[in-house]
């Protein structure tokens, strides 16, 4: 008999741990995610809503600079308290943006898996030598799972050191994700993109992302409602000709495989008219754009004057100071990988 499952207790322990970490844990996350998607708030989440708040009023460029600063500092700095402070700053900005409760919940659900996964997996794997079933550093265990889980999770002892390390890693990602999301939620997409294209102006020249890129994304955003409409019509047109996507409630693998085959065929049928109508639209759009002098000149001008207000200046100066302080701290030894800076 396998010594790992020598008695009933160890079997029970295995079952308990398996359910807790393998079904319940991920289950809660997946359920929350599912709830958010089903309630439709995810699709609305990324839609910019006009709102009046101090964060909405900030110039997109100030916000872009801020997001880049926080993300880079989070990537290079090693001190968990500093990372926590950066994250806190982004949280404060979220509060100042006064988003509707629904958006906050969605943001929370979207971000939650990052720290949970990182803390858990780093918690069991950090410093763990799988082949010898031992740690290469001295560790403080928090919870010891059934050893058989080694073969599933790559470790079975949750340690304080590992959890810290996980928290640390997740903070880095959290800072990037939370600043990025905030930027998307509080800035009109076209303002954001044109902010990227028109980042700096020196006389008549504009320095930033090539306009063609931001143009493509703005067009994409503009066509989303049209595409949804088209897709809806195509689905209905297929339905009235007797082609529907059937949901099969069966565990019979042959039936499931057949249903999968049908589903594939269904989507292939759908794709043809969608692509055809997009192509026709695309070629018309190309004519219309060319005839409105698209890409006629090496640079273009912009109607919307992006003026830095006092608030923008103040915010940007604070951002820059933090950026400088961060780099100074990095040179003094606070950096994660000194080689990277040199």
């Amino acid at each position, binding site marked *: 008999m396998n010594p790992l499952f020598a008695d009933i207790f160890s079997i029970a322990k295995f079952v308990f741990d398996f359910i807790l970490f393998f079904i319940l844990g991920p289950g809660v996350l997946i359920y929350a995610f599912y709830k958010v998607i089903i309630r439709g708030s995810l699709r609305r989440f990324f839609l910019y809503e006009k709102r009046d708040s101090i964060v909405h009023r900030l110039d997109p460029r100030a916000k872009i600079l801020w997001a880049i600063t926080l993300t880079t500092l989070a990537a290079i700095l090693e001190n968990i308290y500093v990372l926590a402070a950066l994250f806190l700053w982004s949280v404060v900005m979220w509060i100042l943006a006064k988003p509707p409760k629904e958006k906050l919940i969605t943001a929370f659900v979207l971000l939650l898996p990052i720290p949970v996964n990182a803390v858990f997996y780093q918690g069991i794997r950090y410093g763990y030598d799988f082949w010898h079933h031992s740690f290469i550093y001295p560790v403080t265990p928090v919870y010891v799972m059934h050893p058989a889980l080694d073969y599933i999770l790559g470790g079975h002892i949750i340690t304080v050191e590992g959890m810290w390390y996980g928290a640390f890693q997740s903070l880095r990602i959290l800072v990037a994700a939370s600043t990025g999301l905030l930027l998307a939620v509080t800035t009109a997409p076209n303002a954001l993109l044109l902010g990227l294209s028109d980042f700096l102006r020196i006389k008549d020249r504009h320095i930033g992302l090539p306009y063609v890129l931001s143009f493509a994304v*703005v067009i994409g955003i503009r066509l989303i409602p049209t595409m949804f409409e088209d897709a809806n019509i195509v689905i209905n047109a297929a339905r009235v000709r007797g082609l*529907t996507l059937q949901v099969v409630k069966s565990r019979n693998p042959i039936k499931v495989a057949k249903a999968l085959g049908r589903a594939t065929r269904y989507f292939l049928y759908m794709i043809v008219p969608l692509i055809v109508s997009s192509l026709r639209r695309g070629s*018309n759009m190309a004519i219309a754009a060319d005839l409105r002098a698209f890409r006629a000149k090496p640079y273009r001008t912009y109607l919307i004057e992006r003026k830095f207000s006092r608030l923008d200046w103040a915010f940007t100066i604070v951002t820059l100071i933090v950026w400088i302080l961060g780099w100074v701290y990095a040179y003094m030894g606070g950096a994660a990988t000194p080689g990277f800076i040199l």
Partner: protein
Amino acid sequence: MNTTVLRVENLWYKYPRGDKWALKDINLKVDKGEFVVLTGPSGCGKSTLALTIVGYIPHVIERGVMKGNVYVKGVNTKEKELHELTQLVGIVLQNPEDQLFALTVEEDVAFGPENLALPKEEIRRRIDKAMKDAGVWEIREKEIFALSGGQKQRTAIAGILAMEPEILIFDEPTSDLDPQGAYAVLSVISEIQRKRDVTVVLIEHRLDEVSKYADRIVLMEEGRIVVDAEPHEAYKELDRFLRLGVRPPQVSEAVYKYNGGAVEGPVPISLEEAEKYFLSLLGDRPRYPGTLRDEEAKRGEPIVSFQDVWVRYPDGTVAVKGVSLDIYRGEMVAIIGKNGSGKSTLLSLTAGLNKPWKGKAYVAGLDVSTATTRDLVQHVGYVFQNPDHQLFTNSVEDELAFGPRNFNVPEDEVKRRVEEALDMLELREMRHMHPQALSRGQRRRLAVASVLTMYPEILVLDEPTTGQDWGHSVMLMELAKKLNRERGMTVIFITHDMRIVAEYAERVVLMHMGKLIMDTGPRAVFNSEEILKYNIYPPYITQLSHRVFEDRPPVLRVEEFIEGVRKARGGAA
């Protein structure tokens, strides 16, 4: 003195990989400030000519064969860069959806001037003026996706105006719009021409509304210009227009046909002119000889029955509000009303694409609330507006067999139905072709044919004539009529074209804001003053007979009108 701003000389053009000449020896001169209407059936080369004038050919479509020259303000289009040409000549296309590039009206209008790298103050000046001229000033901060079709098209016009070209080309700018949108767009165009003193070339195949603005009508046939004359003169060759499936003004048609094709003097082109013409023949306003009444409705068993039906969308919009309506087997019913009045939503119930929120709907005895789309479409053939959205397969044959096969109809029966449909819709020669290789009119026919192979009892056509030329519209409606007469098929169609209603509907249902307003015969509808409240105007021939005859007879067709005039004159003499 008139200065020529546009000159096309001996122009021939063949598309890359094309085997036929799309343009054949085109010669055209347009003076500054002129308003030229360019017309012809689909595929006659109108749009190609427009693309050569704006320089898209040969600058972007490079590999075609182009002979001859196009001069815009004396400049040969071959010798100027495209972006320089855009400031001389601008084009507005058919579908507004395809020509808007920003998220709000103002930003979109600024797109062109920004591309030209104009200084900010200049952009501001131009777009403000353009938005005012195009009638979008009030909605300048609105987001594009929230606009109606007509507003979108006017935004597109403003975008072109902001380039400040001296020649404006409009390529069927109203054919995707409802009558309200189309009317607003046309008024804006004529106003712009007057105010800005620009030259306008309007491509259009419905000539009723546009003829009165035109200084000249240019008719094209298979790549050639066959008529180029002042409108009153151009319609002396009216049979040419009719033969090509182009719709001349109905009032001109009446005068032309009355005279058996030989009109002395100018042919009237507007209601006022035609009224004057006929009154000069008739003297006083006579009464219409005889009576015109709607045919007695066929009242067999109801095949579609709506009983206080309400439809509500998931976002909370209530699109249909308490409609009760019975449609009887074998009827031919038109549903009219402006965009957003709930017409399509109501008909979508027949195929179960929406479900009643309140009330009941029955189709061929099935309760729509519980029946599936699969059940319903065995009785209902549903044809959508745009053929591109409903062709799924790789050959005409497969497309026709697609529906029956989905219902597991035995293969030999499928084959029989396919053969039958190939003949009925004259698609036999194209049976192995890819649906997307067909012309738009053929694709439209295929879309209808592939629903007919499912042997429906009810045929539902959602805007069968929108975006189509008159010839193709008539062909489609004639087919529907034939199915109705010969097979007893119930036909329900949605349309904005009142001439189609007058000529094909036995019964007309008017909807407004989700409610049923009127449900009666076409003559009664067009004689009612109430329809004007809903911006529905009778066909021109009906309006003309209201003006010419004392008793406002509900004339629906040109022939009826002519007969009336003949009899009245005969009686007088």
